[in-house]
C-alpha cells in the first residue's frame, strides 16, 4: 500500500512521539520516494548512499517536521539540499560518475514540477547545464564532455564550477 501525503504526515507525527512502526513506515515510504527522486540525477553508486544519508537526516531531524504541513515538501527540501551538497562533494573529489537509464517517476508521488531537480537545472545557462549533465550525471571525462558539447576543456570546468555554485544558491533561495 502506498502512503499518501496526509497519512505520511500523520505517520511522521507518530514517529516524533516514538512510535516505531510508524517510523518504519515513514522511512520505507521515504526510501522509495527518494530512490525515484534521485534516479538519473546522480550516478547510481552515489544514489543509494545519498538515499541513506537523506534517510538519516529524516531520522535525526524529525523534530523539525511540522505535522500541520505537508510531508513531501519537507522531504523534498532535505533531498535537494543533500543532492547539491553531494554534487559539490563529487566535484571537489573529481571522482567519476557513471550513467544509468533513469527510472520513470511515478506521477502520483511526484511532489510537483516546482519541487523537481529538473526545475533547478532550468535556472542554469545552457553551457552550465550541459557540462554538469555530461560530467557529473552521465559520467563522461572532462575531455570527452568537451568534445561532445564543443566547449573548451577550461570552459567545461568553469561551467561545472559556476553551475554547482548556482545550484547551491538556488537551493538556499527557494
Amino acid at each position: 500500500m502506498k502512503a499518501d501525503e496526509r497519512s505520511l504526515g500523520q505517520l511522521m507525527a507518530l514517529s516524533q512521539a516514538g512510535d516505531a512502526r510508524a517510523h518504519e513506515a515513514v522511512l520505507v515510504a521515504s526510501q522509495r520516494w527518494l530512490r525515484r527522486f534521485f534516479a538519473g540525477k546522480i550516478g547510481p553508486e552515489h544514489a543509494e548512499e545519498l538515499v541513506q544519508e537523506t534517510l538519516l537526516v529524516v531520522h535525526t531531524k524529525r523534530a523539525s517536521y511540522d505535522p500541520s504541513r505537508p510531508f513531501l515538501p519537507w522531504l523534498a527540501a532535505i533531498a535537494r539540499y543533500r543532492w547539491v551538497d553531494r554534487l559539490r562533494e563529487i566535484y571537489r573529489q573529481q571522482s567519476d560518475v557513471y550513467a544509468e537509464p533513469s527510472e520513470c517517476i511515478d506521477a502520483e508521488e511526484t511532489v510537483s514540477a516546482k519541487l523537481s531537480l529538473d526545475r533547478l537545472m532550468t535556472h542554469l545557462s545552457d553551457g552550465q547545464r550541459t557540462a554538469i549533465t555530461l560530467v557529473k550525471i552521465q559520467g563522461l571525462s572532462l575531455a570527452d564532455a568537451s568534445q561532445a558539447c564543443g566547449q573548451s576543456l577550461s570552459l567545461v570546468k568553469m561551467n561545472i564550477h559556476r553551475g554547482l555554485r548556482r545550484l547551491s544558491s538556488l537551493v538556499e533561495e527557494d
Partner: protein
Amino acid sequence: MPDSFIQSLVADLKPVRRLNNRDPWLVMGLLCLAAIGAVSATIGLRADLIAGHPADIVLLRSGVMLALGAASLAAVIAYARPGVGQHADGWVWAAVVAALFPAIAMLSAIEGQFPKWILTAPSGALCLGISLTIALVLGAALTSWVRRGASTRPVLQGWLIGLSSGAFGTFSYSLHCASTTVTYAGFWYTGAIVLSAGIGRLALPGLLRW
C-alpha cells in the same frame, strides 16, 4: 521488509520534542528583559524612561529596532525547517525603514553638518561593546534553537540571526543611551547591528549546516 539500515534507525528511535515556534520568541523576550535589567542595574536607564515620559526619538528608535528584531526573528523561525517555496521577507522592509537612520546620518555628512563629536564620543564604544555583548548572548540562544531544526539556508540564517540579536541587543542598550539625535543612532546603533549581522554571517553558517 525494511533493510538493515532502516531497522537500525528504527531501533534508535526515541520520542522527540517538536520544534516549537513559540520557544525562540519566549527565550528572546526573556533574555531581552534580563539584559534590560542588567543595563538598569549597572549603568542605569534614561531619566525620561524612569520618569515615564520617554522622548519621541527614544520611542521612534526603539520601535524601529524592535520591528527589525522581530521581523528577522520571524524569518529565522520560518527558515529553521526544511521546506520549498518558503518566504519570510518582512525583515527586508523592516531593514529598509531602519536604514533611514544611517541614511540621514550620511546625508548630514554630505552636507557637512555631521556632528564630529559623535565619532569620538566615549559612549560610542560603550554602545558597541554592550550592544554586541547582549547580541552575542541572544545570538547564541537563537543559534542553539535553529540547530535543532534543519535550515536549508544557512548563509541567510547566519545574517538573520546576527541581525535579530543585534537589533534586540542594541535596543536593550539604547534604554540607557542619553543620546537624542538621529545621527548618533544612525552611526553607532547601525554600526552595532551591522557588525552583529556580519559576525552572524561569518561565524554561523558552518554551525548550521547538516
